[in-house]
């Protein structure tokens, strides 16, 4: 930009000053770049150290592992771009599965009725998180830490109260279970690759989230709500509604993941899910989301989840003790955060 009134360029002509911006620079401003480089490095690493890593069957196992985290990492990434956290995301998956299973069993209803009730109940939990955040203006860390603890307790307490044990009764012989299993926990074979249906859910969510982020008004508002909420409000962006919507998006992801958890067996352990919320956040951060909000991408979060899947299964294929996994994950997170900080600096300096 120059202070003088420059002559209007002919239509379509390139600005001569744009030549200075190389292809690398263009790539570097994409939030996914760091994750992509990381994914390539992890892939190469395990290809070398684990003989069976490059087989198709391993690939489908890695994809499945990635999808179970990725389904949640996508809405969690959107929420982080919107400037908030959700620590209740992990146990919300279990809650969703428990509600579905227990409703069907106790009411002897078709499994699909339980699935529907679970959707409404889980969305209500997300709405509760969002409304509490926007009304009280407390940090989301505190609010969702509260709902995290409440849901953890409720999961264990209600299951104990209703079923008398730590796990729900099997719903395998109930009406609608086979079709529900098909939708949430079946396998497809494409060529040599055996794909779990969760991979399709995951890809679908990534596509939907990317569309919302980059091509809709809501996407613009998500970036603005996380980037500078006051400025967004000043130009008329409904910041509170956007944030409530984001929490309900996380709840929707929790519903899908929860139904998968239930349908892949036929009962749910009430203590599951604790700690997973951090895995979702890690995937989002590795994928280029800033902890402070306003920057990131759904595709990046998906790559983050893929790195998670590769590391998780790669260690097993390399026949190492699985205890090493967390060490790897932690190192990966630090590297990703450093790389992101560096990339962002470069991006902001690309004047």
């Amino acid at each position, binding site marked *: *930009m120059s202070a003088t009134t420059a002559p209007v360029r002919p239509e379509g002509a390139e600005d001569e000053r744009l030549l200075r911006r190389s292809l690398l620079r263009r790539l570097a401003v994409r939030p996914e770049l760091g994750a992509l480089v990381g994914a390539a490095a992890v892939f190469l690493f395990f290809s070398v150290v684990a003989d069976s890593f490059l087989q198709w069957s391993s690939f489908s196992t890695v994809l499945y592992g990635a999808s179970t985290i990725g389904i949640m990492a996508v809405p969690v990434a959107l929420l982080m771009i919107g400037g908030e956290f959700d620590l209740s995301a992990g146990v919300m998956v279990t809650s969703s599965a428990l509600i579905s299973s227990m409703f069907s069993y106790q009411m002897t209803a078709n499994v699909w009725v339980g699935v529907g009730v679970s959707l409404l109940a889980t969305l209500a939990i997300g709405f509760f998180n969002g409304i509490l955040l926007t009304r009280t203006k407390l940090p989301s860390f505190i609010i969702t830490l509260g709902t995290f603890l409440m849901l953890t307790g409720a999961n264990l307490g209600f299951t104990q109260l209703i079923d008398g044990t730590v796990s729900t009764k099997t719903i395998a012989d109930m009406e609608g279970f086979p079709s529900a299993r098909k939708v949430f926990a079946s396998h497809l074979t494409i060529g040599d690759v055996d794909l779990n249906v969760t991979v399709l859910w995951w890809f679908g969510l990534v596509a939907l989230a990317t569309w919302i982020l980059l091509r809709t008004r809501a996407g*613009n508002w998500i970036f603005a709500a996380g980037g500078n909420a006051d400025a967004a409000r000043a130009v008329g962006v409904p910041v509170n509604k956007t944030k409530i919507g984001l929490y309900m998006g996380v709840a929707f992801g929790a519903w899908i993941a929860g139904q998968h958890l239930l349908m892949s067996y036929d009962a749910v352990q009430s203590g599951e899910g604790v700690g997973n919320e951090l895995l979702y956040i890690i995937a989002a951060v590795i994928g280029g989301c800033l902890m402070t909000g306003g920057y990131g991408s759904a595709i990046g979060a998906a790559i983050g989840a893929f790195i998670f899947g590769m590391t998780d299964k790669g260690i097993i294929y390399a026949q190492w003790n699985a205890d090493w996994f967390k060490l790897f994950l932690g190192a990966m997170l630090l590297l990703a955060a450093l790389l992101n900080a560096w990339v962002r600096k470069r991006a902001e300096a690309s004047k």
Partner: protein
Amino acid sequence: MSTEHTPDEAAAARRPLVQLTEVSKFYGNVKALEGVSLEVHAGEITCVLGDNGAGKSTLIKIIAGLHQHDAGTFTIEGERTRLASPRAALDRGIATVYQDLAVVPLMPVWRNFFLGSEPTRGRGPFRRLDVAAMRETTRTELLRMGIDLRDVDQPIGTLSGGERQCVAIARAVYFGAKVLVLDEPTAALGVKQSGMVLKYVAAARDAGLGVVLITHNPHHAYLVGDHFVLLKRGAMAGSHAKAEIALEELTRQMAGGSELEQLSHELSRAVGPKGA
């Protein structure tokens, strides 16, 4: 400032876009603003001058709809009003550009330009941002204001402070603001950047907008202002048309008049006060 116009003031007889008459604002028992009057006319720049704590921010918040006045009248195009929110002010054609709140730094220029009023195409689930039009409009509208941007895709945080202010002004003009309220647009800027911003303020005026320019710099105000309202400790310390007052007098009043002379006396061993 008089609300009655004498017949020979033909030009001033037009109805002001925004008129504040004896407006006061109290925070509990603190008088933040008392008996302040000002008029904003289309195609004119009204400067509000005052030192820190003079009540400039309170005044701007009333006009922008963030606060409501407690006494006096606030009219928009002759209609008495009380703005409930910034959105209400925007709907009435009053756009406010805050120094810090103008933009979302990490978002591209074109997304910032349309933030909150994004055009869409298609319908139902395929309703999407009209990205091509948004990019093109951003480029042409900025060019029309004399801002030639290399790349509308760059994060707006990579622009200089002056450029960001200019984009925010261009945005307000494009979205049909009738009154533009600028909060200290030159406060954190260097000389050259300030000049750039003042040029776009003048461009907005020439486009027929009424401008309220809040500043503590009488030199900047005198360059573009048509009318000057001086605030001091929450009250009006003066209201002058440009023809009635010289820069030296404006600077003297702004800096506190006798206080400045006192300071000058105290500092007489040094080179002397700079004035602003």
